[in-house]
C-alpha cells in the first residue's frame, strides 16, 4: 500500500531522549547528549512501520512549554502554529522522562489543546527500578485522554508499541485534557465569538507569543492583533495563571498514577555534585580535565600520526614508481596525495578531541560547568551557557555558533556568536601542530612536554582573546535586554559507549570529508598553477640554469634542484606569490606561505595541504611534509625559513585570523544580518596581521 506518509513530530522537554527515540525509529545517528539543548534545529528521517506504512519523523529541539523564550524553542512553536507547513504533524509524540514526569506533562497538556492527536512516550523506563518509581499506565491514559508507550530508548524496549500507536493514530482522542479558558472565561468567550473558526488555544498562543519572545510567523491569524485588549502585564499574569492551573490538573493525575518509593531510590547525584560543583574542588577538577585533554591530544596521538605521515610519503613514491611517467601521475603523486595526507594525519587528534567533548556531554558534566562558570562569564557579557559553545568551538565553530541558540538573552547570545571563532577549532590544529613541531624544541619542562605546553598556551590564548573581546563588546554594544538565566541540572549518566562512538566517528568523518573536498580541489588548482608558467623563464628554465653553472662544477642532483626551484619561482603560482610577498615579508614569511595563507581563507586546514603540494612539486625524494618545510630557507634574511620568530608569528596569525567561509555563512544565518560576519572578518584579520607583525619584528 502506498499512501501519504504520516507526519510525526517528536516534541518534549530538553534532555528527555527525543533524539534517542528518533534514532531508534529511523535508524539514523543524530547527536545525543546529556545536556539540555543538544538539538537546536529540526531534523528529519524516515521510519518503516509494519504493514508497509511509512512515517516521516521530525526531531525537534526541546522546549519546556509552548511559550517560547529562546530561538530553539521557537522552532517548535512555529511548526505547530502553521498548519500549512509541509511538516505539520498528523500526530505529535510527546517524549517525557519518567523521572521528571510532572514537569514534562505541562507541555503535553498544551500540545493536547492544539487538537493534534497526541501520543505520550514515557522514556527512560530502565531507570524506574533504580529510582523506585511505579506507574499506573491505565489511569494515566484515561485521565490524559491519550495512548502511552513506556519506552527505554537505551534498552530498545517499547519502540514497537510506539510504532503501533503511530499507525493507529486516528483512534486517539483530540480532546483537550485541561480547559485553559477557565483562567479568564470572559476574555476567552469573547475570543471565541470573534474568531469562531479558529482553535481557541492557538489564538491564545499567537496573542501571547510576543510577550515572551517576539517575531513569530503569524500568517492567517494576523487579525488577532486588533483583538489585543490586554496589557502585557495582564497577559503575563494570565499565562502564569494558566501554568498554575495546568499543574493543578497534573498534580491531581499523578497523585493517583505515580508512586515513588524514596527508600528504593539510590542517589548518585548529590554525592557527585558535592565535589564536582564545589567552590574549590569544582574548579580544580575542571582545570585538571582540560589539562588531561591537551596532554592526550598531544602525547597519545603522536604514534598513529607518525605512521600516517610516513605511509603517505611512501604512497607518493609508490605512485611515481608504478604509474607511467607523465602529467597525470605527477598530479596524483605531487598534488593530490600530499594534499590529502596533510589532512588525514590529523584524524587521531581530532578524534581524541571529539571523544573528550562527547564524554563531558554524555555524563551530564557540561551543565555543572555552566553552573560553575556563569558568574565569571557574566562579567564579560557572556552567560554560563556560553561555555558550551566555547568548548565545542574547539571542535568546530559552526556547530558552536548554532549551540548558542539556547541562550535566552539576545545580547549574551550575540556576543557569544561574535567571539566563538577565536576559540581554537580543529582546523587550526594541523597548522599549530606542524609549526610547533618545527620551531619548538621537543624537550620536557617540569615533566611537561614543551610542545604540549605551547599547544595548551595557544588554546588558552584563543579562550583568553575570546573573553577579552567579549568584555570589549559588552561595553560597546548597546542592546536592551531583560536578562535571566535558568539551566536544568540533569542527572549524571554513565555514558553510552555507542553514543560516544557514533559522535566521534560522525564528527571526524564530516571533518575529513568536508576538508577533503576543499583540499582536493585546491591542491589540483595549485598543482596546475605550480607546474606551468608563462614565458621564457619557465619554459627554458633548464637552459638558463645550465648556462649559469657552466663554470662551476655541480652535481647533477644539485643542478636538478636548482632547475626545479627556478621553475617554481617562474610558474603562475610563483609569480602570484611573489606579487604578495611584500605584504607577508614583514611577518617573516616567504611567498609560499603567503599562497598558503590565501588559499586557506576558504578553510584553515588547507594551509598544510597547500604547503605540502607546493613543496612536493619537483622534489624527488621520499620526504615527509615536515622535513620539507624544515629545509626551506628565508629568501630575505637567509637561514631557515621556520625560526622561532616566524613560527610564532604564523601561530598568532592563525590564532586570530577569521579564515573560514562556512563560519561567516553560519553567523550571517544566525544573526540574520551581514553586518556581524563582515565586522568579524575585517576586525579579526586586521588584528591577526598586526599581532603577527609585532611578534615577528620583536622576536627576530
Amino acid at each position, binding site marked *: 500500500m502506498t499512501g501519504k506518509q504520516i507526519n510525526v513530530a517528536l516534541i518534549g522537554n530538553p534532555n528527555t531522549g527525543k533524539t534517542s527515540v528518533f534514532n531508534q525509529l529511523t535508524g539514523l545517528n543524530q547527536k545525543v547528549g546529556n545536556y539540555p539543548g543538544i538539538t537546536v534545529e529540526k531534523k528529519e528521517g524516515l521510519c518503516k512501520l509494519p504493514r508497509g506504512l511509512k512515517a516521516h519523523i521530525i526531531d525537534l529541539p526541546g522546549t519546556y512549554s509552548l511559550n517560547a523564550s529562546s530561538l530553539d524553542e521557537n522552532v517548535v512553536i512555529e511548526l505547530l502554529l502553521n498548519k500549512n507547513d509541509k511538516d505539520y504533524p498528523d500526530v505529535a509524540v510527546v517524549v517525557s522522562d519518567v523521572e521528571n514526569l510532572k*514537569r514534562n506533562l505541562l507541555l503535553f497538556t498544551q500540545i493536547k489543546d492544539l487538537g493534534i492527536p497526541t501520543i505520550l512516550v514515557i522514556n527512560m523506563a530502565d531507570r524506574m527500578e533504580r529510582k523506585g518509581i511505579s506507574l499506573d499506565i491505565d489511569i494515566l491514559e484515561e485521565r490524559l485522554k491519550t495512548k502511552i508507550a513506556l519506552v527505554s530508548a537505551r534498552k530498545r524496549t517499547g519502540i514497537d508499541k510506539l510504532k503501533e500507536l503511530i499507525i493507529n493514530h486516528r483512534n486517539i482522542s483530540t480532546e483537550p485534557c485541561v480547559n485553559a479558558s477557565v483562567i479568564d472565561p470572559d476574555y476567552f468567550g469573547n475570543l471565541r465569538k470573534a474568531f469562531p473558526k479558529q482553535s481557541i488555544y492557538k489564538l491564545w498562543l499567537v496573542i501571547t507569543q510576543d510577550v515572551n519572545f517576539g517575531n513569530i510567523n503569524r500568517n492567517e491569524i494576523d487579525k488577532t492583533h486588533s483583538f489585543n485588549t490586554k496589557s502585557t*502585564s495582564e497577559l503575563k499574569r494570565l499565562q502564569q495563571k494558566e501554568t498554575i492551573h495546568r499543574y493543578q490538573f497534573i498534580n491531581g493525575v499523578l497523585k493517583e498514577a505515580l508512586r515513588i518509593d524514596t527508600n528504593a531510590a539510590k542517589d548518585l547525584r548529590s554525592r557527585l555534585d558535592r565535589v564536582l560543583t564545589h567552590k574549590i574542588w569544582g574548579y580544580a577538577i575542571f582545570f585538571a580535565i582540560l589539562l588531561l585533554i591537551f596532554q592526550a591530544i598531544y602525547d597519545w596521538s603522536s604514534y598513529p600520526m607518525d605512521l600516517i605521515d610516513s605511509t603517505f610519503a611512501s604512497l607518493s613514491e609508490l605512485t611515481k614508481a608504478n604509474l607511467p611517467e607523465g602529467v597525470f601521475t605527477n598530479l596524483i603523486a605531487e598534488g593530490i596525495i600530499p594534499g590529502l595526507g596533510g589532512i588525514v594525519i590529523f584524524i587521531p587528534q581530532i578524534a581524541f578531541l571529539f571523544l573528550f567533548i562527547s564524554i563531558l556531554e554524555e555524563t551530564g558534566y557540561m551543565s555543572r560547568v555552566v553552573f560553575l562558570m556563569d558568574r565569571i562569564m557574566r562579567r564579560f557579557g557572556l552567560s554560563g551557557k556560553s561555555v558550551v559553545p566555547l568548548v565545542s568551538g574547539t571542535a568546530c565553530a559552526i556547530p558552536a555558533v548554532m549551540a548558542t541558540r539556547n541562550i535566552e538573552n539576545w545580547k549574551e547570545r550575540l556576543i557569544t556568536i561574535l567571539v566563538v571563532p577565536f576559540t581554537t577549532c580543529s582546523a587550526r590544529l594541523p597548522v599549530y601542530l606542524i609549526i610547533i613541531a618545527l620551531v619548538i624544541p621537543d624537550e620536557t619542562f617540569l615533566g611537561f612536554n614543551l610542545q604540549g605546553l605551547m599547544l595548551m598556551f595557544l588554546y588558552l590564548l584563543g579562550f583568553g582573546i575570546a573573553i577579552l573581546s567579549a568584555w570589549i563588546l559588552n561595553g560597546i554594544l548597546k542592546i536592551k535586554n531583560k536578562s535571566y538565566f535558568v539551566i*536544568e541540572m540533569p542527572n549524571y549518566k554513565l555514558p553510552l559507549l555507542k553514543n560516544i562512538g557514533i559522535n566521534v566517528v560522525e564528527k571526524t568523518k564530516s571533518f575529513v570529508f568536508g576538508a577533503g573536498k576543499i583540499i582536493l580541489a585546491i591542491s589540483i588548482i595549485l598543482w596546475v598553477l605550480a607546474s606551468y608558467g608563462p614565458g621564457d623563464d619557465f619554459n627554458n628554465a633548464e637552459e638558463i640554469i645550465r648556462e649559469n653553472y657552466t663554470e662551476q662544477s655541480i652535481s647533477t642532483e644539485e643542478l636538478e634542484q636548482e632547475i626545479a626551484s627556478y621553475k617554481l619561482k617562474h610558474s603562475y603560482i610563483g609569480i602570484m606569490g611573489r606579487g604578495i610577498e611584500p605584504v607577508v615579508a614583514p611577518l617573516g614569511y616567504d611567498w609560499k606561505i603567503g599562497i598558503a595563507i590565501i588559499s586557506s581563507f576558504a578553510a584553515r586546514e588547507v594551509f598544510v595541504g597547500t604547503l605540502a603540494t607546493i613543496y612536493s612539486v619537483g622534489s624527488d625524494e621520499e620526504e615527509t611534509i615536515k622535513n620539507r618545510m624544515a629545509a626551506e630557507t628565508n629568501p630575505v634574511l637567509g637561514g631557515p625559513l621556520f625560526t622561532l620568530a616566524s613560527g610564532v608569528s604564523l601561530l598568532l596569525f592563525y590564532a586570530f585570523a577569521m579564515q573560514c567561509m562556512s563560519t561567516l555563512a553560519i553567523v550571517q544565518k544566525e544573526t540574520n544580518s551581514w553586518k556581524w560576519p563582515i565586522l568579524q572578518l575585517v576586525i579579526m584579520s586586521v588584528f591577526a596581521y598586526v599581532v603577527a607583525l609585532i611578534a615577528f619584528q620583536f622576536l627576530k
Partner: protein
Amino acid sequence: MKVTVAQLKRGERGIIKEFSADHVPLKLLEMGCLPGNEVELVQTAPFKDPMYLNINGSHLAIRKETALQIEIELIK
C-alpha cells in the same frame, strides 16, 4: 522581614510563597517553581551566584537576582 530563596543556606529548605508575574520569568514557573512547592538549596557557586536548587524534584540553577524575587517561608 522578607525571606527569599537567596537567603537559603546549603541544605536548607523553604516553601515558595505567591509571587508577582512581573519579576519572575514564566519559564521558571514552567520548570516547576510554583507557589506552594518546596525548594532546597543544593549548592552555590562562589558569592552565592548562581544557585543550584531542587524544587520538588526539579533540579535547576538560577542567578541570584532571580532568587531574590522568590519569596519563601523557611522550613525549620
